[in-house]
């Protein structure tokens, strides 16, 4: 099993509903977020191109944050999800320094926090909060190892990219373009 997320940048309108859903579901402290919307503009006027992306931890297959963690608080669980055990984390910040996506932050209580792919919801057979609320249905979540899953089919049939693949982390959030 290999969990992954696929986000259709052509359908995303950047409404930030995923951001609010995550903050509510995971009780994210005020002023922090585990996911966010990036608006990327390229080109020069009048030939501008706009891309909207909902970004979060990429649950990399080669996660530098897990490698550099001195206590083992950052770890990978079944399905390739990268998690942090709060009472093993000393708040040294090494994982934050190591993340090319700046996807982690120091929780006001001291430990490091990040997107969990809503691991607690997956255990109940539900989708991650961000995916389940998306009003344009531009986010997909599933098992990459299953060739018949919705995300495997999308990645088979649509042009896609990952963020900073040159960082060598093998990210597992895919963007349809």
């Amino acid at each position, binding site marked *: 099993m290999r969990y992954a997320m696929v986000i259709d940048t052509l359908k995303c309108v*950047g409404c*930030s509903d995923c*951001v609010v859903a995550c903050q509510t579901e995971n009780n994210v402290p005020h*002023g*922090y*977020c585990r996911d*966010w*919307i*990036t*608006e*990327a*503009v*390229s*080109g*020069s006027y009048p030939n501008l191109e706009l891309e*909207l992306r909902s970004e979060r931890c990429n649950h990399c297959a080669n996660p*530098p944050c897990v*490698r*550099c*963690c*001195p*206590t*083992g*608080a950052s770890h990978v669980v079944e399905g390739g999800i990268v998690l942090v055990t709060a*009472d*093993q*984390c*000393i*708040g*040294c*910040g*090494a994982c*934050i*320094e*190591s*993340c*090319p996506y*700046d996807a982690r*932050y*120091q929780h006001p*209580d*001291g*430990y490091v926090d990040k997107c969990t792919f809503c691991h607690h919801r997956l255990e109940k057979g539900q989708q991650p909060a961000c995916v389940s609320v998306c009003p344009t249905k531009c986010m997909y979540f599933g098992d990459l190892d299953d060739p018949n899953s919705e995300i495997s089919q999308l990645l088979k049939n649509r042009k896609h990219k990952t*963020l*900073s693949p*040159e*960082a*060598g*982390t093998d990210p597992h959030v895919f963007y349809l373009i």
Partner: protein
Amino acid sequence: MEEELFTSGRNIPNIDPSLQIWHWPISLYLFLGGLAAGILFFAALFYLMGKEKQYPALKAAAVIPPIALSIGLLALVYDLTHPLYTWRLYTTFRIESPMSWGAWVLLITTPLSFLWLFSYYRSAFPKWESKLKLFKKFKFLEKFEKFLIANRTYMAYALVPLSIILGVYTGILLSAFNARPLWNNAILGPLFLTSGLSTGAAAIILLSRNREERHLFSKIDLALIVIEIALITHMIMGYYAGSQVQLEAMDLLVGGEFTLMFFGFVILLGLLVPAILEVIELLGYKVPVAVPAILVIIGGLIFRFIMVEAGQLTRYLY
């Protein structure tokens, strides 16, 4: 044109707009760790070579590593945001994590540096002992000192590799982060080790009262400065030959906001001027030896601050 904006209003403390997770305690620790490693390395090496009697400043300098490492450790813990869980470092050993290596090496080296100092306490600091009279108050210290002096060779054998690991680790700690292109080069470990040894030699020069000894450590320091300049040149060449993210990282040091600090304080005042002064001194002219030594130490400190600060400004773009 490329422009990226967080439209969901992301403004996380210490992360946006630019990373500031590691503050001055980390830079201070990297400097103190290197300094302690340098002094311990020379002290242990010269002891093993049987030359400690010729160089009394090595004994006096033994007082620096325990203090430097203690302050450094306090600084490290101060920078943790979940410090009550610090003991978690010692319930595991993570072979891939430089910080885990560092934590374990410090756990062994810090007490060892205290024992090393204590074994010289009575012979190197007779004035302190005549004031404190520790050996009169606590009888068991006599036996303990005897035991330490008898085992000094083993301590020295342990300290040589430990001090090298400690010195290299201060650089590897940064260079292991692929996400920060300024740090992510293989030369940073040897570079910080060389800089640490150089500041260690400078500290020994400062404490030395003996001309021959000062000359020897001036020569050692000069050689280390030359190596350090070569390593810094290679580091910058590596950025020049690197990818876009490394070119942008280099811009901070060459032409960007850290240029004056880097070339003015680290390269010129911290390396070139002391090297020239040391050459002049070795040629027989009178130069107050404290000047190059202090410049080397301050240069080493500023270098750590620049690398920690500037490294966090560099990142991948996507």
